[in-house]
């Protein structure tokens, strides 16, 4: 009886300590107790503002509860009060490590809603930027995973490559991070031949640079010890928890929306979908490394096949005209005025469109009542759903492996919290 009440006071003390920094909890025998550890939201290894409450026995994780919402900005509410064009810049802020991919995903969804097909050149440009965004996101993953397990050199090397990519993004979109590059029915501006040459050089060098990083990691006993067999999730559990993207492909499920439900020009391109069946952090690392090589292959093909042509669809009631035309032509000025003030006025209906973003399935569900703003827009963000499986992955792992597992899942809180 006494023991019971002692346990209860101890428990409430622990809960109090989680809320109040001035409370301290002392145990008679520290090895005999379970401990609740609060990790985040301000923690360098949580990739933003993820908070994890971890129950520990010694150094082993018994259970964990992820807490989200520290970066919630209410984008779905905002979307209901924005015209379809106005929402494009907000998509940059979802997965802020691959804004170009989000821009593309969003306009593809809106174009499906209004029944519009972009020009072939636009399709190729969008494929190009989606794959560059994937490489950029995976380079970030590579650097942060390596850094979280203590290998700082790889972080430097992968960031050196990312820096080149951001220079390319600046040339393509005019901005490094917040690109807002795509438009409904087109893209903001054309890609110049000089930019394509720079992309070409980057892509030719990339496999060698990845190889350099791999040489540091793939046979490194410390790295392998931290990721091999750690954070395992089984195939059935992964599907049940809705895991998508590299995390799912690391469990032996060959599912990639680029192949399963092809969009843009992926059906014309030759690429492989890397699948590993370890289900652990190492498999997730291998999948992403292979995907970078495949993305480089795709970019090379896109550069070769890129057709010449317009960058705006010829649908003046839906597609914003170029600024030059707005300033010089009456019709275009009227269309521009109507589109900016009243929006594109899509048909009544509801649809869901998903693309394979670097982190997984990024989908937009739009319910339209035929007005300039969507009645409801739901963002199905991969990081949000993927984070749900983190409790399964870290259960039974060591406390030091938690950071490595979070890094191997590669969540971005910008899109998890919306």
């Amino acid at each position, binding site marked *: 009886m006494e023991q019971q009440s002692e346990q209860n006071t101890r428990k409430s003390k622990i809960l109090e300590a989680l809320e109040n920094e001035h409370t301290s909890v002392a145990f008679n025998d520290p090895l005999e107790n379970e401990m609740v550890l609060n990790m985040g939201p301000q923690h360098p290894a949580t990739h933003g503002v993820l908070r994890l409450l971890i129950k520990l026995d010694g150094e082993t994780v018994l259970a964990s509860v992820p807490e989200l919402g520290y970066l919630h900005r209410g984008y779905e509410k905002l979307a209901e009060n924005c015209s379809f064009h106005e929402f494009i810049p907000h998509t940059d802020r979802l997965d802020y490590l691959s804004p170009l991919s989000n821009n593309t995903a969003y306009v593809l969804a809106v174009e499906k809603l209004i029944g519009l097909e972009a020009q072939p050149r636009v399709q190729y440009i969008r494929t190009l930027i989606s794959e560059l965004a994937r490489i950029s996101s995976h380079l970030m993953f590579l650097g942060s995973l390596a850094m979280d397990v203590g290998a700082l050199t790889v972080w430097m090397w992968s960031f050196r490559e990312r820096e080149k990519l951001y220079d390319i993004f600046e040339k393509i979109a005019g901005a490094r991070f917040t690109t807002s590059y795509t438009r409904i029915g087109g893209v903001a501006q054309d890609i110049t031949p000089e930019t394509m040459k720079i992309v070409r050089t980057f892509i030719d060098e990339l496999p060698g640079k990845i190889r350099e990083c791999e040489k540091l990691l793939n046979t490194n006993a410390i790295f392998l010890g931290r990721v091999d067999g750690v954070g395992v999730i089984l195939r059935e559990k992964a599907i*049940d928890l809705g895991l998508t993207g590299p995390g799912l492909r690391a469990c032996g499920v060959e599912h990639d929306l680029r192949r399963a439900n092809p969009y843009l020009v992926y059906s014309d391109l030759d690429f492989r979908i890397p699948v590993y069946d370890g289900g652990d952090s190492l498999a997730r690392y291998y999948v992403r490394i292979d995907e970078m090589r495949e993305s480089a292959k795709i970019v090379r093909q896109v550069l070769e096949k890129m057709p010449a042509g317009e960058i705006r669809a010829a649908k003046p009631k839906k597609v914003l005209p170029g600024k030059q035309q707005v300033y010089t032509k009456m019709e275009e000025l009227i269309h521009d005025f109507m589109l900016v003030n009243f929006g594109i006025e899509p048909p009544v209906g*509801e649809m*869901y469109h998903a693309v394979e973003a670097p982190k997984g399935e990024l*989908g937009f569900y739009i319910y339209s009542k035929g007005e300039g703003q969507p009645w409801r827009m739901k963002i199905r963000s991969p990081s949000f759903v993927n984070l*749900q499986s983190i409790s399964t992955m870290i259960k039974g792992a060591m406390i030091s492996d938690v950071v490595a597992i979070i890094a191997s899942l590669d969540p971005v809180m910008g899109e998890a919290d*919306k």
Partner: protein
Amino acid sequence: MESMNEKVLEKLTAKFGDAILESNEFRGELTMVVPKERIVDICTFLRTDEELHFDLLADLCGIDMYTPVKRFGVIYNIYSLTTKHRIRLKTFCEEENPTVPTVSGVWGTANWHERETFDMYGIHFEGHPDLRRMYMPDEFEYHPLRKDFPLMGIPGSLELPKK
């Protein structure tokens, strides 16, 4: 060859009869409205049926129609990894008693989606193992994605930290 949408609709109508209240196709996507009492049965059937095998719940979200009857809806975007097909289920509930049975027993991923929907719309999912708010603080009283919640928020509804 009959399309996958027709096949799904045919199978569901044969199995559940009048439970399919409404169905339509827009941009090649099938949407079916079902009563909330049958949602768990229908989802279990869709998931376990050998031929359909809709094993991935891609997304679950709420919607506020802002109508006197059937105000709140729950939308299930379901995907099959085998047939690579996507369908959508919808179910509605009333404003006075916004409850819908949980499908977290059918797809584990519904757990967080339902928590988010509860947070944003105040729809209660009966039988949910852990129905807490997902994003907003626990003491927050409102449901921000309802149409009667103002875009600029409600002053004083979120307590600021004391100095």
